[in-house]
């Protein structure tokens, strides 16, 4: 039981990192990145390929994955700069699919659908339970560090400028904010955080393959951030632990529902996850920890004509 809890906490820590990434791009800057899992995948591959095949030391591999995340994030921003939020959402969704397809089909580069097994671990797996405990310490401290850095950034002038861009790009531009640069910075740094999460997860589970990086993961992170509170780094952090905790809890809840087949129990679990989010949104539309400086009561998306309110 203890091993299971430790493992769940490590996974939740990885989700917390992803949630911090989403908080920066979506929560603070208003850029909807539905391709989050694509950056997660890129980070995992960058570190796995360099450490397993090129024999790089792991810290170097992880640093490289952050750089690659930063670079690809920047490329994606400059090619989507002029897009409205809802367009960006769908284009990034496509980006994640392209990443998965390239990873599956370019066998010479990525090893194809077989993936890369035996990715070196950060500390020896042979330590047994201590391996997982050490990883828990590493992942948790990483999540907290990234969280503190993000908190710091969020309350800095830069963070306030990002919020200004989120609330109204035109006003922000008129006020002299370098909107394009701010967006590119936020999106690239967010991509780098997701890549870091990917690298860590890859080294932890020692396996990287295209089929791991499905849209399901992006959806889960969005649920975590929404539940915790969009725009509040602490909300995203707590939301991730709650999400993974709830996902695991539904396992035990589904087990006690009498007279259902395994597939019905699995469906029940997912229904519970969906319903929980719907209820949460209904009862606390701003998440469990709402952003402290309340946003203006208008939609986040910038629409050319009119609003829904």
């Amino acid at each position, binding site marked *: *039981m*203890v*091993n*299971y809890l430790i*493992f*769940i906490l490590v*996974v939740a820590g990885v989700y917390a990192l992803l949630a911090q990434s989403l908080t920066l791009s979506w929560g603070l800057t208003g850029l909807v990145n539905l391709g989050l899992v694509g950056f997660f995948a890129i980070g995992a591959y960058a570190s796995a390929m360099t450490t397993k095949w090129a024999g790089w030391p792991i810290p170097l591999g992880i640093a490289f994955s952050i750089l690659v995340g930063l670079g690809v994030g920047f490329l994606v921003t400059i090619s989507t700069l002029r897009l409205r939020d809802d367009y960006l959402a769908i284009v990034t969704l496509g980006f994640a699919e392209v990443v998965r397809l390239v990873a*599956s*089909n370019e*066998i010479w580069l990525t090893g*194809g*659908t*077989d*993936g890369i*097994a*035996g990715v070196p671990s950060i500390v020896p*797996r042979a330590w*047994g339970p201590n391996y997982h405990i050490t990883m828990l310490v590493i992942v948790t401290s990483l999540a907290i560090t990234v969280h503190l850095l993000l908190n710091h950034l969020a309350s800095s002038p830069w963070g306030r400028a990002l919020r200004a861009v989120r609330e109204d790009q035109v006003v922000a531009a008129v006020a002299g904010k370098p909107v394009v640069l701010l967006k590119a910075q936020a999106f690239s740094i967010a991509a780098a955080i997701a890549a870091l999460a990917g690298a860590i*997860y890859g080294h932890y*589970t*020692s*396996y990287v*393959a*295209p*089929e*791991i990086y*499905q849209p*399901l*993961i992006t959806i889960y992170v969005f649920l975590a951030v929404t539940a915790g509170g969009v725009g509040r780094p602490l909300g995203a952090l707590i939301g991730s632990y709650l999400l*993974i905790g709830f*996902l*695991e809890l539904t*396992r035990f809840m589904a*087990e006690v529902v009498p007279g259902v*087949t*395994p*597939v019905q*129990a*699995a*469906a029940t*679990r*997912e229904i519970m996850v969906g319903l929980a989010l719907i209820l949460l949104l209904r009862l606390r539309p701003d998440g469990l920890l709402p952003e402290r400086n309340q946003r203006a009561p208008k939609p986040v998306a910038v629409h050319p004509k009119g609003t829904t309110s």
Partner: protein
Amino acid sequence: MSLIIHRRQLLAGAAAGTALLAAPAIVRAQAGPIRIGTLTPLTGSGGQYGPGMANVVKAVADEVNAAGGVLGRQIQVISEDDQTNAEAGVRAARKLIDVDKVTAIMGTWASAVTTAVAPLCWESKTFLFTVSGADSITQLPHNGWLVRTQPNTTLQGRKFAEFCLEVSGGKRAFFMMPQTPFTQSTFNNFKIAYDKVGGATELLIYDDKKPSLRTEVDQAMRYNADCIFVGGYLTDTTVLMRDLFRAGYKGKVVGPGYSINQKLVDNVGQPEATEGAYGMLPSPQEGSAGWKKVADLTKQASPDPFACQIYDHVNLALMAMAQGKDATGQGIRDNVRKVSQGGGDKVDNAVDGLKAIVAGKKVDYDGASGPCDFTDLGDISEVKFRYEQVKAGKMALVRIA
């Protein structure tokens, strides 16, 4: 074969030692039911196969429990959903291992899930039975903690090609398959067999999420193949068969039994569109009752190969624990080959097998998916194939060879 004999001698030597070492574990774990876990895809793209697999294991456990259980203890099956996703699968496996303390996890389907779950299993001394197709799985450093009942691609690719050559009588085959961890290697082995007889073959990897594959089929038609191998799963093969029929394709169609089966015939609807198509699946000797048993359990005249394979997983797991008098993963690891191969009373289900073991007899299990003899690596060492053909809208046995 020599490998196996060698292995058996080794095992015989090691058995005494392990029995001693395992003794305290037996005492400790004596109370309560013996737990085994299924980790099959109940949601996601593998969802068409996973539910039936979980049901087979439950049904076998019920029969064994009714006959008195294993080592005097009842069997409890815990079924988790891997969501056809490695991340979710790993969490589910962790729960099965640490919370339920299962002795074995069986039925992992997607190769990515199996590869991700395997290290957890061998580190926690939980035995893993898988149906995944990627050759790389048995090459993991699993140290005997997993076996795979799906034939490897060297064997399958060659068998597929030989059968295509035989039924078409020609030498041009078009090979259509979505991208999977065994696509390239299956095709490579397929091609070797065609090259050997001076034939020609070409691979087309298609996107299995598309509702229409007309242009892909046009490519196949232009190739003027006398045989088309369709290597996908049920949903995409349905699309492919319909589009091949519309295009007026007249040659032979051969595919794996998990997609060319009764469900495909029913899905496609139009009888002529699937008439004459061949399906191949790993199989035991002719007359083995295992296959028939799974057909009864799943209420299907022609059960899919994954249901057959997981039937073998659960039977082997239960008999191995009884054989070693050790209801742990270690017990399964050390004894699975003692009940699966090496001669003895032929049994095809756990109830009979357990009786024989209790009576002190050596058993040799022949299951629903084959004779279930494993190499050191955990691959099956030999298997026959069951060749079926759609005749008048029903799957008809051509032969077993």
